[in-house]
């Protein structure tokens, strides 16, 4: 399959320069990231396996990554326990989640 060409891990970069390496399969749970990395879209992100987020800071992006792995872990199970989100982060995270389509 064509997956051989694709790197297993991708890098997400926050607005303040923090880099997060995570599994491509987890990252692609977010619709926006999936589209950006899709080789068919032909974006530079797809070639470099690296997505830069100008509007999301490191703290929020870390939580997003945590969510992506959490979501991947529980993808097939029922009655999933809710992930803990610090209330102070909620609004920013919500905006990021809306942007990322997760």
């Amino acid at each position: 399959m064509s997956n051989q060409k694709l790197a297993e891990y991708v890098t997400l970069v926050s607005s303040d320069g923090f880099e997060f390496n995570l599994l491509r399969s987890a990252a692609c749970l977010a619709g926006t990231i999936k589209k950006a990395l899709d080789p068919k879209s032909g974006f530079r992100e797809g070639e470099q396996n690296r997505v830069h987020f100008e509007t999301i800071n490191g703290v929020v992006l870390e939580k997003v990554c945590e969510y992506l792995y959490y979501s991947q872990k529980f993808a097939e199970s029922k009655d999933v326990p809710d992930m803990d989100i610090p209330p102070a982060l909620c609004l920013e995270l919500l905006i990021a989640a809306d942007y990322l389509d997760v």
Partner: protein
Amino acid sequence: MAAERTRKRKRDQEDAIAKIKKGKQTKKKDTKKKKQGSDDEDDEYDDLMDMYKKKKPLPGQLDFCELCNKRFTVTPYSKSGPEGGLICTPCGKEMAKDAKAQQKANKPVVRKARRKIESNRLDGATMRGAKTLQQLCIEKIAKHADDVEEFGDLPDPIMKRLSEIFSKKRAMKPNTMKLFLQPHLDTVAIEEAAYLETEDFDQIFAIVPNIKKLSLRNCCQFKDSTMDYMIEKAKQLTEVQLLGANLVCNDKWIDFFIARGPQLKALKLEWLDAAFDDQAVQALAEFCPHLERLKLERCKRIGVESIDAIARMQHLQHLTLRFCTEIPQERLINMITSVGANLRTLCLENFLDGQNEEPVDFVIEAIHNNCHHLSKLRFTENHECSDASYVSLFSDWNNPPLRYIDLNSTRDLDNVNPDGPDDYPIGLGSAGFTALMKHSASRLEYLDVSSCRHISHETFTSIFDGTKQYPNLREIQLSFCPVVDTQIVATIFRSCPNIKKVVTFGCFEVKDVVVPRGIVLIGAPRAQDQIEQYGDLVLDFQREALGELEKAMMVAAGA
């Protein structure tokens, strides 16, 4: 002499008690042994061995504990240890505790918050896997509603969702409501406004003067003064939905229609019982000529004259009515004749003529003759129209296939004859349902035939035969259709590749259905533990589809 006798009696008594206690213990041991060894030979062997064993001390004597080797006094309550010897009281207690814990662990665990989980499912919040991050955040925010100071610039759909969730959690109080009022908005929608006071409603128009669309449900404190303020401030208002605004008097409704008349595009009013009568509807027809969307449900004081007034609204595209009085069918037919041509949506709930003994089918005939642009039709709770009328409605109807059909509870009502009259079927029956599917199946997304009791099993099996495909059908309601059984539900899964939800409350023949992945079956009455059945399995016909999809992807990747 007497003293000696009592002493003797006492001694006899003690002996007897000791004997009884001893007997009890051996009996206990016997039963225990029987449980352990199933073979009789084993028992005999054990009995033989018992003879060589050291005799167990009687109550009152001393022995060494089998577990901790401490010396203790044997009592009738002393328990025997795992090896068969006696154990001391502390060790016995410990053992009892362990046994209890073991018992508890063996009991099936009752899931906590089960009701909550079920509620989430019915809301469609959790189908499978984790909630979306947005959902998690919104729930968290709603939980901490009191601490939030300002939302800032949130996208509109999220604001709407937040408002809905606040409403659902009964968190829409005067302080939290202000979070949803921002000057740049053009929509304010509050699903549950029961906690809000008159001043809070005034705030809406003070802070959001450019409001175009207002939707308030359970707005009990929406008063005449609020209406005045709305007329004065909200000059751009084009869509209004109010549920339960009972403190607004008739004249104020009319004032509002006069003030916003030509620009008003949509009006939805529900549950009004104190005011809003025929006069108000007449004023609406007169002063709001551009009304496109009208919904009047459960407004108790309107009747036939309102139907006549609605007949004069020439620009209506969406019409939903549910009256509390019986309407003679001539008036209803007159209304459909005059406004039907432009309608996209027509919902007539519980419209009964009440005058005629014979079935009256002319309303449905009027729909057939006048409506040619419908995409959504709801005609429910009717026991007057015959099956033949539904056949004629859907046969040669000059109307594109419908997207949404709800004909629930169109059936005969006669306790003595539950199957309805044989010669003249009442309500949507087999023939009507067949005609319906023939007309609309290609585009149909939502179908509700709940309580249409007269549709036969053969009709269901011939429509859903597993080979005919209904590509757009996403939801189907079959509750209280007694003939629906496991086979029909199973073939529905096969006939409708995009089906998401099948509802079968009260269909007692639905048992042990294998629900395919991605589909929810609600209301299977024989379901042992859950009302909803979520599909886990990828069935063979789904596998084929998946296989094709994979092939297509490989081809695409190769190219």
